């Protein structure tokens, strides 16, 4: 009896939650996540704080790419290039415009990569499948080389190094720099994720899905497939730019070698590994990107492997994990978890039983 009333009470709360405006719901979830991050970083050491921040910027890059692939049905092998643009915009702003506040730098980095996204997206809006993949591949290969071409302005292969402001003076006694930095990163990441979630669940998301599923029918209904595809590309590029800018903020450097083809391919692999269609999938992908790298290095050190092997071990591990996940759970970690959850629920209700 009390169990029943509790259940209906919970259902009512859930129902009210579902009926509240989407933006509000997403903002509330982001706020909760942010509080969780603040708690988590308060109990962990500075090193882990930085790692948590690293997961954050990977998450926003993977989420942006997942939106592009999952909702609009386009593929990009060049998302590392947008991170490159974000990181270098950040670096150049910090070096040449010292007075510019961090939030403005981040916004400008997003704007710069969005602008690049417009150019690339408009050019590639007419391409599909492997042709689009090939065109974006050029970006991943070509763009980081720009830094080598202009060593005076962009620092050549050593990249740009700069120092970023840490904790504001008022808080510097209580909050160490790494903790503050991870808060900044996650605040930016969660705000971007709110945008991504709203896009993918909202009006624009429905339009993008319509174009993805049946482009001809969508055009006959008055949608503009080319423009919609470009919009998806721009949003996704903006996420990449933010990720790059946050990385630069965190590390205090922007080097061309960290935005090479390997990064672009890893992002794509992380999307597949995590599972398309939800932000949780992007989170699993981002975690995999960061932790497989860490574990790979740890394992190489423990085994006393030579540098040549040690440097490639994380990549090999990531590849093995990707193959295993795709074989076991073709819809990625999130898809697998969803299936597990469904299996547990049916078992609890009993075979042939129905909920409610």
């Amino acid at each position, binding site marked *: 009896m009390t169990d029943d009333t509790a259940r209906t009470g919970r259902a009512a709360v859930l129902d009210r939650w579902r009926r509240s405006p989407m933006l509000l719901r997403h903002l509330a979830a982001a706020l909760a996540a942010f509080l969780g991050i603040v708690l988590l970083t308060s109990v962990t050491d500075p090193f882990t704080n930085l790692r948590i921040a690293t997961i954050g910027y990977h998450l926003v890059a993977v989420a942006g790419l997942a939106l592009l692939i999952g909702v609009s049905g386009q593929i990009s092998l060049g998302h590392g290039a947008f991170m490159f643009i974000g990181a270098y915009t950040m670096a150049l702003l910090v070096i040449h415009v010292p007075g510019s506040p961090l939030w403005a730098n981040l916004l400008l980095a997003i704007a710069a990569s969005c602008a690049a996204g417009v150019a690339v997206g408009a050019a590639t809006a007419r391409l599909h499948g492997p042709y689009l993949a090939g065109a974006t591949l050029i970006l991943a290969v070509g763009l980081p080389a720009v830094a080598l071409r202009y060593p005076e302005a962009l620092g050549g292969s050593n990249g740009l190094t700069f120092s970023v402001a840490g904790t504001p003076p008022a808080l510097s006694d209580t909050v160490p720099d790494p903790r503050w930095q991870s808060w900044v990163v996650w605040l930016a990441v969660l705000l971007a994720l709110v945008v991504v979630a709203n896009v993918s669940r909202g009006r624009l998301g*429905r339009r993008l*899905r319509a174009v993805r599923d049946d482009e*001809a*029918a969508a055009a*006959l*209904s008055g*949608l503009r497939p080319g423009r919609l595809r470009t919009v998806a590309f721009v949003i996704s590029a903006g996420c990449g730019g933010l990720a790059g800018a946050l990385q630069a903020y965190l590390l205090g450097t922007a080097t061309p070698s960290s935005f090479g083809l390997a990064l672009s391919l890893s992002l794509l692999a992380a999307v597949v590994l995590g599972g398309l269609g939800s932000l949780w999938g992007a989170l699993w992908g981002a975690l995999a990107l960061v932790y497989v790298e860490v574990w790979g290095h740890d394992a190489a050190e423990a085994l006393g492997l030579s540098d040549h092997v040690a440097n490639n071990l994380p990549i090999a591990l990531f590849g093995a994990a990707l193959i295993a996940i795709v074989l076991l759970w073709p819809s990625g970690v999130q898809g697998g978890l969803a299936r597990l959850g469904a299996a547990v629920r049916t078992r609890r209700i009993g075979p042939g039983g129905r909920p409610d």
Partner: protein
Amino acid sequence: MSAPAPAPPALEVHDLVSAYGAVRAVDGVSLTVPAGSITAVLGANGAGKTTLLRTVSGAKAAQSGRVLADGVELTRLPADRVVRHGVAHVPEGGGVITQLTVEENLRLGGLWRADRADRVRAREEMYQLFPVLAERRRQPAGALSGGERQMLAIGRALMARPRVLLLDEPSLGLAPMVTRRLLRLLRELRDGTGLTVVLVEQNARGALSVADHGFVLSLGRVAASGDADRLLADDRTRHAYLGF
């Protein structure tokens, strides 16, 4: 006193050519569709019926020729512009977006229109016209039967409040009874709203039973045309092109 000037035709096609590579699927077709009429476009497989509709609605580019709706030039406009000029096209198979719900599919058809209140009104009208869609509004469109999908596709096209509705083989894969109901509904729609309908069909007998006029295509050209009754009565056309 002279008779009032006739209204401009809802749709005019002049000498339209539309090709896939070297193959001219539509090879110089001209036709006139009077406002408020139901016009059947008939013919065998590969006669160019679908290509004709696709070229008229801008889903495919024309090689040459002209398309006008109510006297407005539509030639070379892309599909998303043509629908804004009052010509809506229900493609073969309906083109329902299976990942979206029934309601989301319907809304898709009117998204481009600025008049939000009228969009809501149009949606309610569609639910009255197709009550089965109202029952299933929250279900994914992939769960609909073939007939329901066809209704959804027509409803989505009507959300644009078109003056001309182009229908490509709405009877495809439907049971004869469902087809009859659908065709009757087209007739009621025309009588009620003055909608102009261009109906591409293989099912010539069914299409001519509701149509006012008919055009018979053969190998991309107009082989015969005239009033629906006359085409039905003309044994030679029937045997040569319509197969009954």
